[in-house]
């Protein structure tokens, strides 16, 4: 299965498909700059995976990678925008340095990934309790759920997050 991937394999792949992939991304995104960036990222992934010579259906493979990158890009942009909007909504907005902002967006991406498999109501309950500090009674009022359900959702969410961290090799702190 392993032929050693040579720089030539990558070069061939790049020459044969880079322009096509960029066009495909441009069609999906409607933005040539993002398309160029993501096409580059997709080839970087191939380069890192060192499996260029094993790829049988290069365009399928590249579009699969590219779709993942599009979702990541949208998620990151959306989170960054939400983060900035949340900052702006504070009574006395503070202005973070670019470094702080980058770290905050990374942290949000990680939390968002951890919460990803939760149902929307479970997620909502968990965030209201954990981030907004609402009591179960307040959450029950706001979401029209029974107190017992709020309690159950909290346990469900925490169990999910613990399992996520275990499986993604996050060490307990």
């Amino acid at each position, binding site marked *: 299965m392993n032929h050693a991937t040579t720089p030539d394999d990558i070069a061939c792949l790049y020459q044969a498909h880079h322009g096509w992939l960029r066009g495909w991304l441009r069609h999906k*995104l*409607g*933005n040539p700059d993002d398309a160029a960036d993501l096409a580059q990222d997709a080839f970087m992934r191939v380069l890192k995976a060192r499996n260029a010579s094993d790829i049988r259906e290069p365009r399928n493979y590249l579009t699969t990678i590219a*779709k993942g990158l*599009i*979702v990541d890009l*949208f*998620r990151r942009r*959306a*989170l*960054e*925008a*939400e983060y*900035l*909007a*949340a*900052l*702006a*909504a*504070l009574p006395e907005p503070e*202005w973070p340095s670019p470094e702080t*902002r980058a770290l*905050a967006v990374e*942290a*949000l991406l*990680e*939390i*968002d990934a*951890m*919460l*990803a*498999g939760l149902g*929307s109501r479970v*997620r*909502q309950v968990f*965030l*209201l*309790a*954990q*981030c*907004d500090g609402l*009591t*179960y*009674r307040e959450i029950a009022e706001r979401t029209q759920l029974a107190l017992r359900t709020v*309690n159950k959702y909290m*346990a*469900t969410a*925490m*169990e*999910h*997050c*613990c*399992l996520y*961290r*275990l*499986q993604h090799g*996050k*060490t*307990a*702190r």
Partner: protein
Amino acid sequence: MRPSTVNVAGDERAAIRAAATWYARQCSGSFAAAERAAWQAWLTASPLHREAWRQVEGVCASLGSLPGQIAGPALRGVSASRRQALRALAGIAAAAPLAWFGYRIADAHGLGADLRTAVGERRTLRLADGSSLILDTDSAVDVTFDARQRLLRLRRGQLMVTTADDPQTRLDTPRRPFLVATPHGLCEALGTRFSVRTGDGRSRVAVLDEQVRVAPAAHPARPLLLAAGQQLVFDDNGAGSIEAALPAAATWAGGSLVAVDMPLAELLAELGRYRHGLLTCHPAVAGLLISGAFPVDDTDRALRLLIETFPLQTISRTRYWIDVAAA
């Protein structure tokens, strides 16, 4: 892949489930002394329990790495965006032919109520059918609600609509479409929330919830279907391609201009809509990419934020002309 299906030994899983249940009890606000004692007994009973509890603490630490008043709104806001991204990936759906294509603007002035905002003003209005309309700075719109349609004609500026269910719909009458017309085409709401702007020879619609069907005036028989999170620019020649909606298309209604990697010249043009006078930038910094949230109700403050954060300065050329240049 759901994490819960991945390999975690049975007793470890059971311990985590128990720890999560204890956690839920602790957060309830009614964790009495007796319960606390029971929890501590559980903790000391097994190293597996303590390990599971450390996981719970890890999750809390991860969530606590940002202030709650930031993380809460940001994470709540983004769950809708994920669905939008997936929809965008599903491709640009071919739109169904427009049943409503024979629309007529019955009378440009007759029944139309003229609504306007001044430069720097933003107004929220409730329309006769219960829909809400937010008018941005320096905007003008005519409202025509009749037996067949609910029509807004946007003459200039920007609006955001949150449609309500039509109260006049009965079993024997069809639903009246909710339409927004600009000089460059017509948008039909197929859902609830979207934003439309027009000016500089073009129009833009950005969809925030559900879907909007757009028929550019140049190709009215070839409407396009936009999903939440998408936007479309159209002009006298037709429509551009469907793109991911810019954050700014939604956030203006809350009074902030949220930019993510927006060129400075574009940012200043946006801010300039909210103030009298001229706001320009030096060509050398026009392409500088800016990210941030800027208050549109206080553009002086927005400019201060800008020059405090980026290597820029403002130069007052005259009382009504501010130029932004490299510091």
